[in-house]
């Protein structure tokens, strides 16, 4: 009954709100306006992007621009392009101006990016309810001054790790540090931990596994090697206050490195995207760390879309060599991995090895998914688990992807059906 109530509420959000959002005044859609524009008989001579100071547009956007040059003026396509640029450069907006071209029958298009000199915004990057984990919520305030942005976030997250961590984080980011290809970020985090009963029982007589709070300072430099490839290097200095009174604080100081690759291929029938990353964190005594370990994690996702059909295939794997603190250990069974399972039933202390994959099919607002994965420790045998699920997602068109998402997931081969329910946005 509880699930049914959430289902009805979610369905109302998914079906009714988009209808309201779309009912903003143009009964005939953009085509009527496009045909009505007398300038649509003229050929586009050039498209300029004005106000573009410290960023470059992606290959796909440049291709979109090139495809419109030399063609008849298409207001609908220009609107779509302006929105895509605004989204990519995170501008306040992009306005369209059409001017006379250098010859009769030709026009020039100017897209003006409105960045604003300073910007303040409050956002909710993550908000969800999970039937096993409870609530997870994060709020963030960000102010941007030119190339500098400052943000402060408040959160309580019971989804990402085996611990529920609550507290605040603050970050400073500087784009184009000396070069357009280099970005700098400095993050500070201060969290208090809560442990699940299953984790406390599993830790048993070895409570030094656990800590009551942790702080992290993490400077990073990101090098944009190409449009598709970025490399990040940094240092993470994490200190933990143990649960046991009288114990000294412990530290996990590590050097970090991440390689990210993103490729989008847009075709006439199929749109494809590939995201891949590799992350390594290495802590050793030379950095003053009490924990000595190396943590590797790879992640890849391939998406292919055709009309309203979309298929996503994802994989992630990881391994820890040495003894890592709890926040580094791997777990499956949350809102994005092995969704039919409770992570505290699978391994309440986490593990040093992980491998999981998932296939999601989406059609319009509907989605169905299959997850498989295993967590285990070195020397143990991996026992893969599987789950399947269905869900609904809705986009109002102004908040971003997965604005509202709700899903039921069921574990397979468990002997009994105990579904997991997830509802929220941006997860």
């Amino acid at each position: 009954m509880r699930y049914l109530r959430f289902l009805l509420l979610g369905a109302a959000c998914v079906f009714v709100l988009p209808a309201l959002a779309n009912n903003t005044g143009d009964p005939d859609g953009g085509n009527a306006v496009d045909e009505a524009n007398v300038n649509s008989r003229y050929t586009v001579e050039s498209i300029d992007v004005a106000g573009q100071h410290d960023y470059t547009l992606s290959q796909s956007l440049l291709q979109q621009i090139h495809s419109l040059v030399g063609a008849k003026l298409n207001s609908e396509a220009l609107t779509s392009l302006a929105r895509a640029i605004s989204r990519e450069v995170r501008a306040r907006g992009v306005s369209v101006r059409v001017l006379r071209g250098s010859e009769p029958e030709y026009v020039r298009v100017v897209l003006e990016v409105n960045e604003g000199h300073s910007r303040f915004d409050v956002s909710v990057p993550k908000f969800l309810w999970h039937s096993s984990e409870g609530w997870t919520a994060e709020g963030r305030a960000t102010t941007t001054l030119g190339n500098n942005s400052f943000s402060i976030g408040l959160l309580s997250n019971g989804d990402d790790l085996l611990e529920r961590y609550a507290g605040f984080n603050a970050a400073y980011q500087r784009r184009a540090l000396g070069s357009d290809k280099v970005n700098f970020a400095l993050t500070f985090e201060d969290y208090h931990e809560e442990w699940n009963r299953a984790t406390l029982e599993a830790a048993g007589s070895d409570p030094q596994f656990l800590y009551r709070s942790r702080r992290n300072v993490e400077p990073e430099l990101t090098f944009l090697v190409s449009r598709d490839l970025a490399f990040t290097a940094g240092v993470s200095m994490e200190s933990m206050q143990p649960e046991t009174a009288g114990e000294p604080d412990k530290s996990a100081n590590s050097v970090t490195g991440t390689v990210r690759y993103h490729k989008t291929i847009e075709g006439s029938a199929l749109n494809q995207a590939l995201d891949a990353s590799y992350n390594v964190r290495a802590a050793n005594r030379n950095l003053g760390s009490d924990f000595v370990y190396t943590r590797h994690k790879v992640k890849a996702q391939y998406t292919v879309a055709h009309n309203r059909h979309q298929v996503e295939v994802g994989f992630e794997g990881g391994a820890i060599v040495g003894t890592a603190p709890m926040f580094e250990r791997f777990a499956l069974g949350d809102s994005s991995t092995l969704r039919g399972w409770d992570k505290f039933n699978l391994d309440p202390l986490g593990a040093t090895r992980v491998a999981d994959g998932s296939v999601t099919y989406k059609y319009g607002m509907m989605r169905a998914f299959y997850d498989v994965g295993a967590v285990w420790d070195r020397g143990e045998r991996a026992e893969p688990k599987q789950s399947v699920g269905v869900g609904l997602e809705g986009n109002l068109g102004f908040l971003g992807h997965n604005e509202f998402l709700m899903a039921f997931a069921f574990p397979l081969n468990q002997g009994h059906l105990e579904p997991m329910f997830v509802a929220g946005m941006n997860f």
Partner: protein
Amino acid sequence: MRVSNEDLYVQRVNDDLRVSAPRIHFLSGQPLTRLHDGVSVPFDFQLTLFSGTRETPFRRTVERFVVSYDLWEETFKVARTRGARRTGLSASDVENFCLQNLTVSAAGVPPGNRMWVRLEIRAQDSPEGASGINDPGISLTSLIELFGRPPRNSQHWMLDSTAFRMEDLEH
């Protein structure tokens, strides 16, 4: 924008009522700037007929006209979303065309009843001028954008006629 009621003239065409407003120029200000920028601007018209009392509308007509400005010929094009369209017009020609194609039926109004007509014109933000904001999650900016849209994006004119009877109007 409210204009005194002497600015709205009502004309009878059989059972229909048509209006003219020679002192209203909706092709001006921000909408005209957008038109000169080569984008099309939709204008929503509403003509409301009140009968007997000025509180309850008797009948209402809603029309949308999309106007654009030819950058090379320096003339306007207007298109009614249901059919008629004209090109090579001046600004005043466009204003007249819109009002000429806007009628409200007075059929069924009891003889001798006092009537009033209200004309409302609203210039909408065109799709080309729309801004896109897509921060992840619910953000203050996007909510302000959503809920603040009507007052920011539209210009509005409203005119009321004086009271009249059907018998007062010539065919």
